[in-house]
């Protein structure tokens, strides 16, 4: 994060409720949404939904970089009742931390703070989260990436989580972890884990913005950390194979990660968004090792040859050529970057897609490619928020908040034939809110077929935006492997008339966030997909025939 003109201000070093001790105090009630005319598009509804989570983080006089990076969230069915619950990560005061909060969705669509079990009650300075069924017992477990020892939390199936001791699980690295992803790199049927790591925090480092005020340092001031790769041995045990498989050969400032098959060889590769350094593309050699190959594949730097402050990641085929593209968010004054996949590799297609200039005034974090109106193509949202103090607070920022000068409006882009246009009116409250936003996912919370948005804000409330756009038809797929587990790494392709749409089965992406819900396709006017094909991890292809619109289909892998 290159801190441009971003001084920090002593008078704004106002600490917040949980900052005076390492207590396990709870969150504050969410601030009511400002009075006024509610817009169409994505409409704020957390007040109605009972969500009262407010992210807690102290702005210390040390200006530790972890304070400004925000905390993640996860949307998934924690208690197995079929709806989407919400896990909000918290930071508190470094290094004490704060407990993370699990909100279970009840039958009325309200989010109720739940006892998430002892694993979530422990105070941690948490940043990112990964979802995956690590023990193949049919429920989703959690990896919490902390500034401090990471945690692996096992779900009892009812939404109560227990931390596996590091001595048992092999997971508990004490460094600064950010985003993470569960994926099965060696196709042994067990989910392995990739963990991005950021910097070695050093309180001796002090920095100022160009206006001379104290502010958060550029990450390059600190030593970078190599990422971690854990191999799932079964029984809740993991082996750190970072060195053995080549991951620890390079250190950088990892913030975002997605796992996908970039080279079409049937195994899952890893793409890492690095802050201010070239991104990594770890090509998986069939589980035998990983080779970094981002530059030669056109994914390390932007079209100007520049490494950027990469943070959030979104995956999807935006131009309908049947190849998966990657979108990466960046700092203010850098554009976000759309890497379009072409037969020879990736090219920077940001300008051609009209995504360049619009993103320059903001710092993007969480991002999602999703079909917001179910019109078949993938639209784009970006959660924005500065990492350095802006010269002036933007209109609409929360007055008096310690993060007032870090708040920026979010962006929503509509995709029309591969060209994106910024559409704040369609964005509604999502675009009108001016917050220092960080993590974000798009999920069909109310199961009406339209994807809603969940946004985590630095030092502010987590917000839910209901999708009130007129949406076309849709269908969803729960894609299960032969263990009955979500088939992370599979791809689903549907044929609608002459067109083909592709989505991956994945819980990773965006920034510090995780989402586990059925794979969603907009169908436009069509009442069914004419053909559904799944390519399973390893490359095996299975044809499921047609599928009707408006429901969730379960696609099970044939027994091998």
């Amino acid at each position, binding site marked *: 994060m290159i801190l441009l003109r971003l001084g920090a201000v002593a008078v704004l070093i106002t600490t917040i409720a949980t900052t005076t001790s390492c207590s396990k105090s709870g969150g504050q009630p969410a601030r009511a949404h400002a009075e006024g005319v509610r817009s169409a598009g994505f409409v704020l509804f957390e007040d109605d939904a009972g969500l009262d989570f407010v992210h807690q983080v102290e702005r210390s006089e040390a200006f530790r970089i972890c304070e400004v990076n925000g905390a993640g969230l996860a949307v998934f069915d924690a208690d197995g009742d079929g709806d989407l619950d919400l896990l909000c990560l918290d930071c508190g005061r470094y290094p004490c931390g704060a407990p993370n909060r699990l909100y279970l969705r009840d039958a009325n669509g309200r989010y109720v703070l739940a006892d998430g079990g002892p694993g979530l009650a422990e105070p941690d300075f948490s940043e990112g989260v990964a979802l995956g069924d690590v023990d193949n017992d049919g429920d989703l477990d959690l990896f919490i990436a902390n500034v401090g020892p990471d945690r692996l939390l096992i779900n009892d199936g009812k939404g109560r989580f227990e931390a596996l001791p590091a001595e048992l699980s092999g997971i508990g690295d004490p460094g600064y972890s950010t985003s993470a992803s569960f994926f099965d790199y060696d196709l042994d049927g067990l989910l392995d884990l990739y963990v991005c790591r950021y910097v070695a925090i050093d309180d001796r480092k002090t920095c100022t913005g160009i206006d001379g005020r104290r502010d958060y340092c550029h990450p390059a001031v600190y030593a970078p950390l190599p990422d971690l790769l854990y191999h799932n041995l079964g029984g809740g045990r993991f082996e750190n194979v970072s060195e053995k498989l080549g991951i620890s050969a390079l250190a950088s400032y990892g913030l975002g990660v997605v796992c996908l098959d970039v080279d079409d060889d049937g195994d899952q590769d890893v793409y890492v968004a690095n802050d201010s350094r070239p991104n990594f593309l770890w090509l998986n050699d069939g589980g035998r090792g990983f080779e970094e190959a981002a530059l*030669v594949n056109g994914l390390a730097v932007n079209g100007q040859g520049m490494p950027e402050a990469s943070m959030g990641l979104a995956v999807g085929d935006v131009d309908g050529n049947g190849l998966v593209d990657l979108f990466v968010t960046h700092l203010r004054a850098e554009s976000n970057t759309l890497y379009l996949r072409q037969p020879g590799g990736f090219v920077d297609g940001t300008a051609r897609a009209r995504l360049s200039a619009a993103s320059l*005034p903001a710092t993007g974090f969480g991002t999602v490619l999703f079909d917001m109106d179910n019109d078949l193509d993938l639209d784009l949202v970006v959660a924005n928020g500065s990492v350095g103090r802006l*010269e002036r607070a933007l209109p609409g920022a929360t007055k008096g908040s310690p993060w007032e000068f870090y708040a920026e409006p979010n962006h929503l882009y509509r995709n029309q034939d591969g060209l994106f246009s910024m559409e704040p009116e369609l964005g509604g409250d999502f675009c009108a809110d001016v917050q220092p936003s960080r993590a974000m996912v798009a999920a069909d919370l109310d199961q009406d077929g339209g994807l809603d948005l969940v946004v985590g804000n630095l030092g502010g409330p987590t917000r839910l935006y209901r999708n009130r756009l007129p949406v076309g038809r849709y269908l969803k797929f729960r894609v299960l492997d032969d263990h009955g587990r979500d088939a992370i790494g599979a791809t689903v392709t549907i044929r609608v008339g002459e067109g083909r749409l592709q989505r991956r089965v994945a819980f990773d992406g965006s920034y510090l966030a995780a989402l586990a819900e059925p794979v969603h396709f907009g169908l436009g006017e069509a009442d069914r997909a004419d053909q559904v094909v799944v390519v399973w991890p390893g490359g095996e292809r299975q044809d499921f025939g047609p599928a009707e619109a408006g429901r969730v289909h379960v696609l099970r892998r044939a027994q091998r």
Partner: protein
Amino acid sequence: MKFAAAALAAVLLALVFACGEGGEPLTLPSPPDLKDVEPAVAEAITRDYAVLVAEPDETNLDRYGRTCLAYGLGSDAAAVFENLITARGPTFEREYLAGRAYFLSDRERARQHFEAAWSIRKDYPALAICLGQIVEEAGELDRALELFRAADAADRSGTVPFALGRIAMAQGDAELALKELARARVLAPRHRPLLNLYVQALVRVGRKDEAEALQKELGSEQEVGATPVLKIVDPLMNEVYRQRVSFLGLVQRAEAAARAGAMAEAAKLYERAFAAKGDERSLIRNIAKAHHEAGELEEASVWYRRALEDSPRDAGLIYELGRIEFQLERVPEGIKLMNEAKDIDPENLAVRRLLAIALWNRDPRTALTHARYILRKQPDNVPMHLIVARIHLEAGREDEGRAEIEIIRKLDPDNEEARKLFREYLKK
């Protein structure tokens, strides 16, 4: 300058002023919002704004706009240049600087101004490159090519072939990209972003071994913050920016040194800041004062005299210079300066006090006049009573002298000077 006063003056000036050239009226810009701006920056901007309010003309407005641009107040700068464009008509400089003011915050408006500048003048490579970059970002690659090519002949930095190469890459023409990037590489052989694209281009044309060898040679470390635009020739912006970076830092360091009491160091730093930005005349007083407080009287005298060139009727400045002359024992010059200050500001008691002290044995009558003037305002001023007493006693006016000494003894019974004077009188 007090900013509040400037703001008030701005309001009183009814927001519109004419520039004395018979042109359209220019609008006085709103006072800049400097609430959270670094003090040194705020001071620089406030000063120029105050100058503009005091002398609202085109020159000062233009200067204020450039200052805003230099310090990153893009919207304020843009408002100024747009004001000038509206009232005085478009010129290349106004349009270009307005474009630069919007360059980071509003690409669309930046483009409008750059396009206007381009319609006026097409031989300014930096404009072609800036506009080309915006057009490239907008995905209009053919137009971007046209603009970059317009700057090609003048470019010695590699910027243009680099741009041509990356556009060719985006257009899928790896062969052309490689050719252009190779040309850029000759001009900028160590520019890492260029080399990154060069590696990609090698891969795309099937020269993988070369690509891998080059990548290995380059290593994994990348220059943080490397600019994609190489060092292009841009005299206009260089002029604007030259003032800023070194100037601000030096002023801040000078202020810190002054706060710490290291006045000689502060004076040196202020002088360096002044050298970095020679038109910041207000620094001259700081330099003079710092030298003065450091005891460097000759230097202080020189800088105060420079300050007087800008403000010849500033009684405060003349007084300070006079003090220095007295300290340097150049009393006649000091007296001359104090008399000048007194003529400008007859009620300045500090000036009259120094005159009374300097003149009591040279021109007792005049000294008495000054001392009495002070005593009318400050009846308890013991030193002035002492001077009056001494003048009376020296002149043989014993009663008046004794009366003054009595006053002093009442005001300050332990005053050693008065006792000494009284003893001298008794001896006589």
